[in-house]
């Protein structure tokens, strides 16, 4: 009987952690997405600094994200952020626009990775 209670407790802990994880991933994806939208245009003075700051924020959150999200998904975001930062520093308008356009998609894939949906399960 003790073992059964221990298993039920473990199940409750796992479900709680799963919910917390899903909320965390969702929040990170949403905040990063909003930050990308709020980035200044390529011509402005603090564009490169804003991109670097966004990248730093992402890198700070990355270790916790990678506990449950596969590297394939997070690497995609990392690459686009690197391209974004490089484009901002080089004042490459096309590269900046492309990275800025791809990032929300990559973040959406990340967010979907932990969502419960019929399509996702099957």
């Amino acid at each position, binding site marked *: 009987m003790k*073992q*059964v209670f221990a298993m039920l407790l473990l199940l409750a802990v*796992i479900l709680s952690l799963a919910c917390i994880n899903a909320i965390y991933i969702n929040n990170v994806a949403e905040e990063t997405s909003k930050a990308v939208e709020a980035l200044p245009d390529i011509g402005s003075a603090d564009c490169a600094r804003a991109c670097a700051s966004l990248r730093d924020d992402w890198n700070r959150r990355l270790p916790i994200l990678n506990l449950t*999200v596969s*590297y394939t998904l997070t690497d995609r975001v990392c690459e686009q952020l690197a391209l974004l930062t490089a484009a901002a520093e080089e004042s490459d308008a096309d590269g900046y626009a492309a990275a800025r356009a791809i990032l929300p998609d990559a973040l959406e894939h990340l967010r979907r990775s932990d969502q419960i949906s019929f399509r996702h399960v099957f």
Partner: protein
Amino acid sequence: MVTLLFRTLILYCLLLLTMRLMGKRQIGELEVTELVTTLLISEIAALPLTNEDIPVLHAVIPILILLILEVLSSWLLFRFPRLKPVLSASPTFLIRSGVLQQKSLVGNRISVEELMTEVRQKGYSDLDQVFDVILEKNGKLTVLPKPPFAAPTAAQLGVTSKEEPLSHVVYCSGQVNRTGLRLIGKDPAWLRRELIRRGVSASSLFCVTANRSGKMTLVHKEADS
């Protein structure tokens, strides 16, 4: 490479713990659910070992969930026996009272040749030597012979044999096994006295087994060990 090393260590410890918590039934695979769980666990554990892109938690969480499901389902089967037919098979007679159960053979997709193989492996040359053959839940066959072909027991031969208590290892590789001594109702002091009485030094011994009646078997070390 270092990542792989740590992942292997983590998953190995987790699998050991999981199998230990599931108990001996898992190793014996008494139920279908246990076999399924064992297969799944080994497949899941292999994933992060072969692909570093997959986080370790993608194996840890499913393994823990399987452990939980296995313990809960075996408890449910224990607590509510009516669920047994739903979750597990029941033993089936393939030969009953010497009569071949043809419908059972067809239903379980066992050919007569396969049945004969099992009967031969149990030491019987023909089906007419066998009284019952039961296909157990774990897929193994139990063969019970007809009395003329069964090995006679001591009781049938009128031979009285003394009951021999179970022996346990009480000393091995230089270490006294206190658990073994406790199981036979003795203590290390008894072991020391017995070895002195026999004129044997513990350092010359590889292992010692003993039982409750005090019978001891000494295995000496080999010359070059």
